[in-house]
């Protein structure tokens, strides 16, 4: 294992529209276990931001506590990061977003951080349709405290010590759809082909975008009998469809047979080309999306891909009616009513 990431980069590495190479989007060297699914998800975020020509310093990355919450250090080193307290990333992200609506917000959480200690904040950030990407790196266990079951561990799943989990699991994707999330997807850390375009679509979504990524814990939950192991997930993944992300202004080149392909237009005009595989599933219909997830579950399958999305949504700022200008840039002249008004107010209090 290397402890230092080599600084050398090939001078001819391709650059994106902003003139940045992929390496510009990387972060510090990961200290997670070798083979951890989370590192693949970090890599997908790096790729997505590079592909989308996002200015890294216009991104704020926030997290709670746990293995997953360490990852913001491992991507976008030119972005401000905030590793907050356990289960409270959504509130910190909400405050940050209210302060400056012009940045992009990426929230990283885990299954413990979201489905247990942070459940309250998770459900409420969904209700508020905060404009952010919320990623759960879901491995069904508490890695940092050595492998205890989490609330997303499936009933009957066996952990490394051979113990069988007795409790029902919380299905975060279904919950998000039910609570009114406006973009919900599910993926697998081992499926970069699917994860990167999903990340891109989610980042372009105007509103709350949730991606639940099954991300095996190689150290504590990759054993036989676990339903979150690499082998199990690979065998049980069923995709809603394959998809390509086509940024706004790009020419659509690939062609698919009519009927199997749908173009989902995002807020800024970008398009998701979706090649549907699941029958009777409509990504714009909440009930249909929940049904699709539940049907797959009944067959012991994990449904991945885009599950649900709304094109036009009203995010928290619009619901509150806040100004288009970032609140953190308003000056005293705009914010302070001044002594004249205070004099009037004093008079009214006599």
């Amino acid at each position, binding site marked *: 294992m290397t402890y230092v990431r080599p600084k050398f980069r090939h001078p001819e590495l391709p650059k994106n529209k902003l003139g940045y190479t992929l390496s510009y989007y990387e972060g510090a060297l990961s200290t997670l276990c070798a083979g951890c699914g989370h590192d693949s998800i970090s890599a997908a975020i790096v790729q997505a931001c590079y592909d989308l020509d996002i200015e890294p310093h216009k991104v704020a990355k926030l997290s709670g506590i746990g293995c997953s919450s360490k990852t*913001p250090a491992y991507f976008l080193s030119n972005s401000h990061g905030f590793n907050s307290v356990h289960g409270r990333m959504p509130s910190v992200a909400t*405050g940050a977003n209210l302060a400056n609506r012009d*940045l992009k917000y990426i929230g990283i959480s885990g299954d413990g951080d979201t489905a247990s200690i942070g459940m309250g904040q998770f459900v409420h950030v969904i209700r508020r349709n905060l404009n952010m990407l919320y990623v759960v790196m879901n491995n069904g266990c508490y890695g940092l405290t050595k492998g205890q079951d989490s609330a997303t561990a499936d009933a009957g799943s066996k952990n490394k010590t051979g113990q069988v989990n007795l409790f029902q699991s919380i299905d975060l994707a279904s919950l998000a759809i039910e609570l009114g999330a406006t973009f919900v997807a599910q993926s697998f850390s081992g499926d970069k082909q699917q994860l990167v375009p999903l990340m891109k679509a989610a980042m372009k979504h105007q509103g709350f975008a949730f991606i639940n990524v099954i991300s095996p814990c190689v150290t504590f939950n990759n054993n036989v009998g676990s339903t979150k192991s690499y082998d199990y997930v690979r065998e049980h993944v069923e995709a809603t469809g394959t998809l390509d992300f086509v940024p706004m202004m790009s020419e659509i080149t690939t062609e698919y047979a009519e009927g199997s392909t749908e173009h989902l237009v995002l807020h800024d005009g970008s398009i998701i080309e979706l090649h549907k595989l699941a029958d009777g599933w409509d990504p714009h219909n909440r009930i249909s999306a929940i049904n699709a997830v539940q049907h797959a579950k009944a067959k012991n399958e994990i449904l991945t891909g885009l599950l649900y999305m709304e094109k036009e949504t009203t995010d928290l700022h619009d619901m509150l009616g806040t*100004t288009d200008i970032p609140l953190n840039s308003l000056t005293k002249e705009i914010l*302070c009513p001044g002594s004249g008004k205070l004099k009037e107010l004093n008079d009214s209090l006599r």
Partner: protein
Amino acid sequence: MSAGSNSVNDFVVRFANVNGTGSASANFLFTKSIFRMGIPVTPKNIFPSNIQGLPTWYEVRVSEKGYLGRREGIDLMVCVNPQSMMNDVKSVKKGGYFLYDSTKKLHDEFIREDINYIGIPLMEMCNREFNDARQRQLFKNIIYVGALCGLLDIEVSVFEGLFAEQFKGKEKLIAPNMKSLQMGIDYVKQNFSCPLNIRVERRDLLKDAIMVDGNSACGLGAVYAGATVAAWYPITPSTSVVEAFMEYAAEYRVDPQTGKKNYAIVQAEDELAAIGMVIGANWNGARSFTATSGPGVSLMNEFLGLGYFAEIPAVLIDVQRAGPSTGMPTRVQQSDILEAAYASHGDTKQILVIPSTPRECFEMTADAFDLAEQLQTPVIVMTDLDLGMNDHVSPPFEWDDKRIFHRGKVLTADFLENMPKFGRYLDVDGDGIPYRTYPGTHPTKGAFFTRGTSRDEYAAYTEDAGAYKRNMDRLMVKWETAKKMVHAPELYQHKNHHGNGILFYGTSKYAAEEAIDLLKEQGIHLDAIRIKSFPFNSTVEQFIAAHDKVFVVDQNRDAQMRSLLMIELGINPEKLTSILSYDGMPITADLIQQSITNNLSIHKVKEGTLS
């Protein structure tokens, strides 16, 4: 029988009402009429944690001398609540008055020989005059205000003015209100000798004073200080802070062109989320605050520790109520002092500012935003239920238009461009305060990782013992810097004269100032100091050092401020004598006077036996 025999502008009226019957506005009308007569007046709302049905009291002290603390002893009881009548009768001072609804005859058990009864058939009068049930209820309240107008000799024209203001745009309501008032006046004039020997006389003692509650003042202070993000969770007695912010922001902060708001208010799912949002917004360069009470501060502890350690500004307004646990949610205490001062696990110290008047609530809330950003740490405004929810006579609000928002050490893109390596936690200036950057400032410089875990000067995660200790020690350097920046205490004398001193803070100010005068009359002279902040600056230390004995007034059981003084300043416990009030009612001058008199006489006796 006499009630303070011929007492002009010096008496206490208490109203005993049923919660939810519209009595609050009638009672406030009474208070405001005294205020408009130019006489110092202080109302205390003694209300239950209930929306409708339980007994509620409203106590009004009128004081020519300008004493605005609560005073024991009721001169006139207005009792319109049969539920509490037995206790209400008992609570009247000997020689005092008991005003009641005489529609039904008063039972014998309510009769005391040593007080005067003023029976007015309120219900009967209302039923005769008004048909609608709600009107009967509301105007009954106005009739008793009218009775007081006659009994206490309040000018009728004052009420005319108040009604005209209250019902601006709803002028139809003025006539029935005036009529009810007049019914009360006429009845007492016909049936009793008016005015009573307690009465008011017009004065000009209030000058430019205003009457307002502290919570409104805090909300207003946040508007003036440029707060743009408020996140909160409703809890008595702090709720009206954010409601006031909401109201003032709607008035002053809506863009006239677009109709959009130059602020955002989020009602959070709990106090944890509320303070989390505040931390997030401040981290991202917006001035943000929340308001809560003791139970909320308990829940916010974890984030307050993060704010302290990761050095993120935050403003929290703690409107203290009686604890522990749910305690008495509608009663006052100063019992969050220690919890707030050391909020969160590990070695933490939090900045406290402690206002005593609505004017200070306004100023200190505004100052708290400057302090929080300059010191890059949470600042807690320690107000209380009495100050927050009761109306107070206060000096008017003042704002200097030349005042700037002190945003602290924040690096701009230009500065970052030209500087060598940015170190988020580097003590460049030697004051313990490092430089920060807002997200989104510069493409390649100034980004850093904020965390509650230990880190080095460049914000890189480390478990290195030396780096951790350097950081903890720098935070103490910052703490020393804070001592010079927080509000200096108020000293009541230019030079210390006496052997004994008295130290108080927050709403104890009113009772303490009165007690000092009362003691002076007894020949006991005290130097006095009012603490306005934590950490204590050197003046506090000097004051204690200069006196043999210092009485420390705390409205809590555990003498929390005394403990804090001992811990932080290393003061000999024997030097600090506690005066405690913790029954949930605002402290009185009487209690302070008695405690000090007793203490000093015991001390004298001891000295006598020794010599």
